[in-house]
């Protein structure tokens, strides 16, 4: 490898050993970095990897930004206050109030935390030096989906009563008796299993695939530069593709944070009001 190429490769923190034995596509190993340090509490092993560090940094940065945005609130907002407030009102008005309804405002802080936490962590997939999103490790989206699952079931039981909530989930009103043999298992599976599963997998799959796409084109750029024959002329095209995919990734980052939150709001809306 040339020095510029190895510099790029080290920025990617990739395992691109590249060079003599052909193109080495990025593998799943990328998502299992070496632990920086590990310890054990009560027999449970904890390993702090760079992905954990990225999670801490992203969350701390988002908290710092939000605190800075509203530290000195004024009637005529400054730039930071404006960004922070519009972000929050997007969630509060666009989701909590419009999707859930009048009973939704108490959920605005939960939805906003969810949105900004996912947004900050997703954004780390294109931030230089980090270049990998914690959300591309399945454990993180899974925990978020489990929290959502607990919230909408708890709200449903609290607002409608356990009997009514589970009865409506199993037997949706207005369905003919004969159709229940099909509808009941599908509805139960959908509400209690498929909803949290798809929430977690959707976010995970998008961030995982996005990172792999970027890694393939970035490593491809480096490999084509170092291949040492006429294929070098294709290297700029791989680089342009990596650039285009970075902008596409930017879209996916915001969209997936929005989709996760709007689906959470939709599920809570179904629990708050009895089906009719």
């Amino acid at each position, binding site marked *: 490898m040339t020095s510029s190429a190895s510099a790029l490769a080290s920025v990617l923190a990739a395992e691109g050993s590249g060079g003599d034995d052909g193109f080495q596509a990025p593998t799943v190993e990328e998502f299992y970095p070496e632990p920086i340090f590990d310890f054990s509490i009560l027999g449970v092993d904890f390993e702090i990897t760079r992905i954990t560090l990225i999670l801490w940094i992203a969350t701390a940065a988002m908290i710092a930004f939000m605190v800075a945005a509203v530290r000195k609130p004024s009637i005529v907002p400054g730039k930071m206050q404006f960004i922070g407030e519009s972000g929050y009102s997007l969630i509060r008005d666009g989701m909590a109030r419009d999707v859930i309804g009048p009973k939704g405002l108490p959920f605005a802080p939960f939805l906003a935390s969810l949105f900004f936490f996912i947004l900050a962590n997703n954004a780390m997939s294109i931030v230089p030096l980090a270049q990998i999103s914690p959300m591309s490790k399945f454990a993180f989206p899974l925990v978020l989906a489990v929290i959502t699952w607990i919230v909408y079931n708890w709200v449903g039981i609290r607002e409608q009563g356990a009997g009514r909530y589970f009865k409506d989930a199993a037997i949706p009103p207005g369905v003919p008796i004969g159709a229940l043999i099909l509808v009941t298992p599908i509805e139960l599976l959908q509400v209690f299993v498929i909803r949290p599963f*798809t929430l977690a*997998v*959707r976010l995970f*799959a998008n961030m995982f695939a996005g990172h792999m796409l970027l890694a393939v084109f970035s490593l491809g750029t480096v490999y084509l530069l170092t291949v040492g024959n006429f294929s070098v002329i294709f290297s700029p095209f791989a680089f342009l593709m990596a650039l285009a995919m970075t902008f596409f990734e930017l879209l996916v980052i915001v969209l997936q944070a929005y*989709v996760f939150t*709007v*689906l959470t709001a*939709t599920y809570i809306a179904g629990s708050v009001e009895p089906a009719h």
Partner: protein
Amino acid sequence: MIDVLAELEGNIGAVGYGLAAIGPGIGVGIVWAAYIQATARQPESAGLTRTYAFLGAALSEALALIGLVAPFIYG
């Protein structure tokens, strides 16, 4: 004796996921097409139908996501 003209290597799960993504792709496309059409015909209904659009898209997308994990489970 058959000469091997072309050979494919890799995981058959990739082909399986390609097949599994066809249906959800069509389904998600229909959901959003209907949402855009509804919004174009009646712009003030956009907020009302957005929730159902996301629900429908999420429901059809579930099949693609199940297809995504199936190769990991059986692979």
